[in-house]
């Protein structure tokens, strides 16, 4: 009996760790619930219930013994699609039975502690390129390409740097969009840039909460009303922070 209880707790730990990594990396709520359920059922716990919100997961397993419930708190969320893909493949391996509980727990712990993101330089370079390209896509002229690239790249860099010092995400987004607005304004004043609007729109795109918006909608339509609404609120706050940062530049200069 005691052995069995311990085993159930171990299985729940694997499920919760997988769920935690996925939720922190920006996966959709229904995918997190689905993955946890699949892992549990392939380890032999057929009846499970999970309640996933962006800030925490409650997971309970039913069986012959009394129902056991565990709670895990999620305090920080970012976007890391690679981790989502890795956890997904581990859950596939568990379902097909190629790895056992111990191996799964080890691999998940490894993923959890790894930092898989691209180096900061690559990220900034990508943001730089993307800003320039977005400016062209929104019908800007090629003569604004370089200014949009510079302000977009520096804006993203300042977002990352501010975020390291200030843990409040909305404030660093506000500051980053302020930097973008200021730089674009300076470029236009110097005569390097031509259309202020296009430069700002192009460079702000790297901060836009596109992932949050799509996830919020997907959650809402899958019936996860609480997490859909809270993700929507987060997206709205982010959009508001960006808008306010630009508005400060536009209205005071």
């Amino acid at each position: 009996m005691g052995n069995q209880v311990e085993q159930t707790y171990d299985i729940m730990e694997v499920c919760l760790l997988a769920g935690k990594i996925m939720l922190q990396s920006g996966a959709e709520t229904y995918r997190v619930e689905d993955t946890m359920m699949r892992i549990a059922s392939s380890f032999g716990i057929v009846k499970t219930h999970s309640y996933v919100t962006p800030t925490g997961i409650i997971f309970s397993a039913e069986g012959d013994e009394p129902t056991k419930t565990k709670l895990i708190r999620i305090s920080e969320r970012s976007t890391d699609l690679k981790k989502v893909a890795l956890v997904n493949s581990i859950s596939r391996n568990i379902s097909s039975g190629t790895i056992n509980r111990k191996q799964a727990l080890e691999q998940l712990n490894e993923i959890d502690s790894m930092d898989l993101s691209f180096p900061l330089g690559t990220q900034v370079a990508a943001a730089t390129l993307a800003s320039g390209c977005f400016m062209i896509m929104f019908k800007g002229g090629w003569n604004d390409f370089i200014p949009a690239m510079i302000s977009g790249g520096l804006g993203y860099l300042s977002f990352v740097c501010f975020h390291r010092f200030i843990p409040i995400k909305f404030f660093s987004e506000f500051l980053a969009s302020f930097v973008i607005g200021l730089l674009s304004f300076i470029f236009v004043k110097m005569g390097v840039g031509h259309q202020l609007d296009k430069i700002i729109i192009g460079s702000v795109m790297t901060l836009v909460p596109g992932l949050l918006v799509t996830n919020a909608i997907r959650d809402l339509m899958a019936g996860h009303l609480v997490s859909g609404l809270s993700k929507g609120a987060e997206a709205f706050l982010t959009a508001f922070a960006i808008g306010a940062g630009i508005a400060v530049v536009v209205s005071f200069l």
Partner: protein
Amino acid sequence: MAILAQLITSFIATGSFGIVFNAPKETLVKCGLIGMGGWLVYYLLEGYTNNAVLATLAATVFIAVLSQELAKFYKTPVIIFSVAGIIPLVPGGLAYDAMRNFVENDYNTALGLAAKVLMIAGSIAFGLVFSEVINQVIRKLTPKKS
């Protein structure tokens, strides 16, 4: 010529968004291609009908259906393919215009623009819902191999 420039820039933009979102390296090119296809649908339809809402809807359905098929094929989560492709469709430019008009106390123009932003965001949402339905219908219609 203009279309060629749009194609290249949308490919690079969505691909580099994949890097910002830390998508796995081997999916970056596919992300870029999906983004390019979606943007092509949007650009052509928007130029032809002059209706951004319809164009956004069509492009979203295109991206979402395609990325669900790709996700099934490569056995990866859908989100990896769809997210980067949807980013260009987000009405950032219009939202900026609306914000700017609010700040400049031109509330009438600003409200009109804000309504349009809501319409486009809603059409992205509806496109996602619609493609999910299409996918479930496809899944039900195709006989299961067992």
